[in-house]
């Protein structure tokens, strides 16, 4: 039981930092290592850690399965949709220059949108996989 206590307190202490680190990896990916994929895995990892120490119910309260299931296709749609914007504005598919008057700024915006799409799909897939495994085991 005492080990359990250490786990619970330790998890509570470390969880906010893991989630913050995921956001850092996501938005600092333009400057340092990281990006949508890594941030997605880290944020999924924080939900999985919560589920392991505090039970599936607590994890499902912050990441409801209905939302997680929708995240899996939503990210791909964000990514593909960012490409369609280029087509609608008379440019090539996935041409990011359309997102801003200044083409270089447009590229920065495009990268940000696309990375967000990757984050949503990766995080959704990892959490959905974990839920599927755990519920199968019941």
């Amino acid at each position: 039981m005492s080990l359990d206590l250490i786990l619970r307190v330790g998890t509570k202490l470390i969880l906010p930092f893991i989630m913050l680190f995921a956001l850092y990896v996501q938005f600092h990916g333009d400057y340092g290592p990281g990006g949508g994929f890594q941030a997605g895995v880290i944020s999924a990892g924080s939900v999985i850690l919560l589920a392991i120490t505090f039970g599936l119910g607590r994890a499902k309260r912050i990441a409801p399965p209905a939302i997680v299931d929708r995240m899996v296709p939503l990210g791909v749609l964000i990514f593909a949709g960012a490409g369609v914007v280029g087509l609608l504005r008379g440019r090539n598919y996935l041409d990011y220059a359309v997102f801003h008057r200044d083409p270089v700024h447009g590229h920065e915006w495009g990268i940000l949108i696309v990375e967000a799409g990757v984050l949503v799909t990766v995080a959704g897939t990892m959490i959905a996989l974990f839920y599927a495994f755990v519920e199968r085991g019941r």
Partner: protein
Amino acid sequence: MALLTLLAVVTLAIVRQRSLFGVVVLFGIYSFLMASVMIVLDAVDVAMTEASVGAGVSTVLLLAALHLIKTIEMRQSRPRPLPLLLSVVTGGALVWGALALPPFGVPDSPIHQHVAPRYLQKSIEETGVPNVVTAVLADYRAFDTLGEATVIFTGGIGAVLLLRRSRRDAAAREERSR
């Protein structure tokens, strides 16, 4: 060199290990070693992915799979010559092919001659993103990354559909347990 030796030792340990729980733990160690190798090779983004996916999420999923199949011990199998021969031949062919690669880090090898110099020189003025890895992944090679995202989507959906019980299935179990 020390890292590669450790990798070989861990691989041998995985092959020799009979307890599946031990295999999962060794897989995690293997992934962290691989991440260290990637850091030594200056591929920080890959190292991050390897550490988070290989040592983090897949360890959890493998443990969950162990829980599902409810065995922790692997059956002792007879040594079978044909698969052994096949993998030795494949491994030998890979080593033989790797011998013909240009030496590591030589600037005039073909891979550094094609589009890489342009990416390195132009990526900041064209995309405004200092991390060239992000610029290549999300901008120059956005099509490939879209394909990767689709692969993750397809794989994830497929695995979840296989694992999740259908509503009818769950109702039938409920009926039987009553």
